[in-house]
């Protein structure tokens, strides 16, 4: 500027030079504007400052950006266009930095919320697990009760069986229930079932009807009166006679086996009347329960 003034005083006719100088001066003086791009950066900053999620989250960086934008908005002469562009560049990056920092902070704050949500999800999961466990426990208790009931039922059945066996006056042995049908069934040398002794046999019928899976071996025995052969035949006939009676009462023959044992297995001395009476007998051996009954337990 000094240079222009000195030139003007140098020569009054230096019109051309003056015109050039005034042009230069005018270039400097006429409305220096904010550099291009400054307005856009301001808009960007304003949008950051009005974002409810970001505006409060990076105060230092936003303040920094604000200062840079204000600097960028300062008018610069055309000569200083490079400076203006530099300021705009700086301001733009600072707004971007502030945005990134605020977004980071926002994400971190969200994370705390996510963590809470996850904790809640975990809690719910645990609650569900606990509920499921309780349901399982209840179910298990139910099972236990059912098992108890089943056991009770089995016990009742066993009790019932015991009652039946008691009623039969049968004896539990390795071979099964041994039921000695009284020696009063038959008269000496006869194989017909005595009238009146049927009540004892009827208990057997009832028992076999109640436990249809059991089979019976019917064994006939005699005293030593008469020959061995005849006693063998007699014992066989007596056993068959009992079998026939049971079949007649509705017990399938397939469940019944009749065997004559003769005089070979006396229970008592054949010398006395009482002893011989005890030896004249038919024994029903009721087989131990079939596996089906055991499985039910």
């Amino acid at each position, binding site marked *: 500027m000094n*240079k*222009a003034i000195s*030139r003007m005083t*140098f*020569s009054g*006719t*230096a019109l*051309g*030079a003056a*015109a*050039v100088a005034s042009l230069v001066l005018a270039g400097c003086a006429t409305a220096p504007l904010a550099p291009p791009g400054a307005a856009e950066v301001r808009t960007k900053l304003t949008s950051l400052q009005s974002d409810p999620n970001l505006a409060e989250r990076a105060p230092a*960086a936003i303040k920094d950006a604000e200062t840079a934008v204000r600097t960028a908005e300062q008018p610069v002469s055309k000569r200083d266009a*490079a*400076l203006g562009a*530099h300021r705009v*560049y*700086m301001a733009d*990056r*600072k707004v*971007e*930095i502030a945005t*990134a*920092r605020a*977004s*980071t902070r926002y*994400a*971190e704050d*969200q*994370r705390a919320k*996510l*963590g809470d*949500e*996850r904790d809640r*999800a*975990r809690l*719910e*999961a645990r609650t*569900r*697990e606990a509920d*499921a466990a309780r*349901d399982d426990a209840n179910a298990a208790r139910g099972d236990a009760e059912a098992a108890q009931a089943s056991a009770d039922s089995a016990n009742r059945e066993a009790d019932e069986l015991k009652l039946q066996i008691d009623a039969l006056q049968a004896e539990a042995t390795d071979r099964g229930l041994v039921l000695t049908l009284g020696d009063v069934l038959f008269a000496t040398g006869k194989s017909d079932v005595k009238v009146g002794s049927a009540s004892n046999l009827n208990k057997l019928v009832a028992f076999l009807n109640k436990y249809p899976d059991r089979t019976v071996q019917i064994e006939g025995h005699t005293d030593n009166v008469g020959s061995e052969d005849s006693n063998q035949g007699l014992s066989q006939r007596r056993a068959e006679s009992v079998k026939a009676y049971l079949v007649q009462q509705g017990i399938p023959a397939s469940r019944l086996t009749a065997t004559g044992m003769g005089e070979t297995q006396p229970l008592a001395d054949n010398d006395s009347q009482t002893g011989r009476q005890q030896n004249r007998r038919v024994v029903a051996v009721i087989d131990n329960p079939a596996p089906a009954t055991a499985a039910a337990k």
Partner: protein
Amino acid sequence: MRATSRTPSGLRLCTAAGLAGSLLLAGACASTPPAPTRSLDSARTAVTNAEKAEAGRYAAVELGEAREKLASADSAVVAKNMVGAERLADQARVEAELASARTEMAKAVAVNKEMALGGDALNEEMQRAGDKQ
């Protein structure tokens, strides 16, 4: 220039003197500021920090830009353009800072996404387990 060439010779002399003066002024401007070492150092530090923060993975464009600006600043120093060097160094610094800031942001967002997925997965799994009951 065309205007001056049309002016009389006396004026041409004046113009020459004026031009010489402005050249002198420009020369004085160019030689006055020393190399902007502080700006350059800040820029280098910022770029190094960004690299350490894995900006190469999360904000590669910004990091590349920062490196380019820094190289340009160094070139400007060699060319004795110290004003340009300082501006380029400052630009390199903010560009590197932006790279770091965006890297941090990308990492934070990635973590959230994973957490959200994890939460969803957990929820879903539990829902499925619940359905099975």
